[in-house]
């Protein structure tokens, strides 16, 4: 301070008297704005990930002893070895793969519907809203409606089968059909989601490029493949990302439609995890956490790929 007072000129005095905080405000501002999000992200996402990994090394039923001490017992990697010998785990894993593969159908079908709806006809907005409708209603409702559809006694599927004189299948009671039945129900809102992504994408397709393509004689599939689709790449990327994540976290549909049944044949990892850790017949937090860690590892493969892809695209542009 004494140094500043010896010099004339008020600006110098002012600047140094503001201190460290003021001098670094440009660098600090983004962190300050990010802080609330970062804190909550850490508390609700990052820390629980490590906690889950930690709990998966313990055998614990979630109860504390009367004196407040934990009743957890260290078992090391035993839960992971148990998983290797668990039929239910393999069923769930297999179903997760089925979900991943078949859920991808939502992307091309969504694109098809978007292309179909991308025209100017009277009332097109109503049609668009109707197609978007399933995404707006709750997954629980979708699951409930489809379980009625599939009901062989009074559901629409049973009616159709009986119309053709066939015995209606009990889709949700048949271990070979049940997963397909649930995925089909799950596709309905997912297609709507992909459709809306493509519809917004189609708004941004440059008309001059279409025009140029047309002058060069492109039409039909060629036009779609070489002119329109490349411009829709951001929408496609996003659609794939949300569909992969949607497939891996499929939970509500299964909980509503079958509870993982019949005899566990429609289980997926996320539901199996819930069942082991938190349901009435579960409370095996350690084992449930081990399943969660496996699911997380699978998700990490996709997440890292997407992040890497985004990073590369951004650097490229």
């Amino acid at each position, binding site marked *: 301070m004494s140094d500043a007072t010896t010099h004339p000129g008020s600006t110098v005095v002012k600047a140094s008297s503001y201190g460290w905080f003021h001098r670094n405000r440009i660098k600090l501002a983004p962190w300050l704005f990010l802080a609330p999000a970062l804190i909550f992200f850490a508390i609700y996402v990052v820390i629980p990930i490590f906690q889950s990994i930690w709990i998966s090394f313990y055998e614990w039923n979630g109860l504390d002893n009367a004196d407040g001490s934990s009743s957890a017992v260290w078992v090391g990697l035993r839960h992971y070895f148990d998983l290797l010998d668990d039929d239910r785990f393999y069923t769930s894993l297999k179903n997760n793969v089925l979900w991943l593969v078949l859920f991808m159908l939502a992307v091309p079908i969504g694109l098809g519907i978007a292309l179909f709806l991308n025209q100017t006809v009277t009332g097109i907005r109503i049609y668009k809203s109707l197609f978007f409708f399933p995404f707006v209603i709750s997954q629980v409702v979708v699951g409930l409606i489809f379980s009625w559809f599939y*009901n062989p006694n009074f559901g629409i599927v049973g009616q159709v089968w009986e119309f053709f004189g066939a015995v209606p299948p009990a889709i949700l009671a048949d271990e070979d059909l049940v997963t397909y039945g649930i995925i089909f129900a799950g596709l309905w809102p997912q297609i709507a989601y992909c459709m809306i992504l493509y519809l917004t994408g189609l708004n941004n397709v440059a008309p001059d490029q279409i025009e140029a393509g047309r002058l060069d004689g492109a039409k039909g599939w060629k036009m779609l493949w070489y002119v329109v689709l490349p411009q829709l790449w951001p929408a496609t990327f996003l659609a794939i990302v949300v569909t992969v994540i949607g497939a891996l976290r499929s939970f509500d549909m299964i909980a509503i439609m079958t509870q993982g049944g019949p005899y566990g044949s429609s289980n997926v990892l996320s539901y199996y995890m819930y069942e082991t850790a938190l349901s009435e017949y579960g409370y095996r937090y350690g084992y449930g956490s081990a399943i969660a860690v496996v699911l997380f590892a699978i998700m990490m493969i996709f997440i890292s790929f997407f992040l890497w892809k985004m990073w590369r695209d951004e650097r490229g542009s």
Partner: protein
Amino acid sequence: MKSLLKTTFTGAVALAMMTSASFASELIITYDDLNPGPKAAFEAAVEKFKGENPDINVTVNNNDREAHKTAIRNFLTADAPDVTTWYAGNRMRPFVDAGLFADVSDVWEAEGFSKTLASTKPSMTVDGKQYGVPYTYYQWGVYYRKDIFDKLGLSEPKTWDEFIAASKTINESGVKPFTIGTKFLWPAAGVFDYLNLRQNGYDFHNQLTAGEVKYTDQRVRDTFARWQELLDAGGWVDNHATMDWQEGMSLFINGEAAMYVMGNFAVGSMRDGGLTEEQIDFFQFPVINPDIANAEEAPTDTWHMPTNAKNPENAKKWLAFVAREDVQTEWNEALGQLPINSNSTVGDDKFIQQGFATLNAAAGIAQFYDRDAPAEMAKAGMEGFQEFMVKPERLDAILERLDKVQERVYK
């Protein structure tokens, strides 16, 4: 300085506790049923208790049944009430093992409950000590459509052969012998339990749920062989794996199925569904092996005192109160269920009366497969039962899988 502060503080707390105990003593009760009927029955009992103990200041928390199942896991350690409801058998085991439920053998001793509550004593006992008192239970058995039986000239079957014969007759008339809904698994466990209790007896049921017998044991196979006979005689309605027990009930009400192995709570929905008293009736699950004494299924609801209860004296007064014969008579009359106290009396409902007679004559009371076996075993077992009902040819694979689960669970 610190220690001085600490002693003063503890002293103050002790003083506060003493004064509060001498002036207005407290009792905090946590109950778990918000349905109008049970809630009213509970509140009537609380009023009666208050009348008898005017010096006790009673606080009541009433919670939804499913919410209670989750909440109890927290409040027993964090903020324990003085008494809480729960279930007998293996369901209370984790809390007993963690030391969260207090030993109340002295209440049993003082009130002579070992005699009056004898039927459920084994279900309340861990290592020779009692950890709560029962206040209500209900019978399981076969509910049937009397009008269908009458039309086909059938009477209540008493033996296994009559049971099979009746099933065949019903099946030939175009009606399914049994209805069930196994989406939530447990109804299938009722069937298994009864077949097993009648085939192998009460002790075997306990050995199996305690993990002392393998599922590939010949005696378990015998039980499944009986089940197979029922399946061959027409068995259960199709697609039961997609239905819950109420949806299964609708087929019973429609007359598409004639019998239902169920608990007595099902009578309410039969009546709500429009069936008259002449159309419905109950019989005890028939005898399979005449050398085996009849044991019954009767899931029991119970009261417990948490170890962290702040007013253990009053809590014990409540436990003694709820198991008393007159209290159980009134409470269960209002609930439409059965009192456990053998000196209690029951209302004139025919199902209640049959149930009371059946259970009082029982050689043993099983809680239910999913309450007697540990949760993980119960889940796997019940999935196995469901799978067997749909794909009986897979029996060997199912039993081997259950052995594998058993090995892990009881380690």
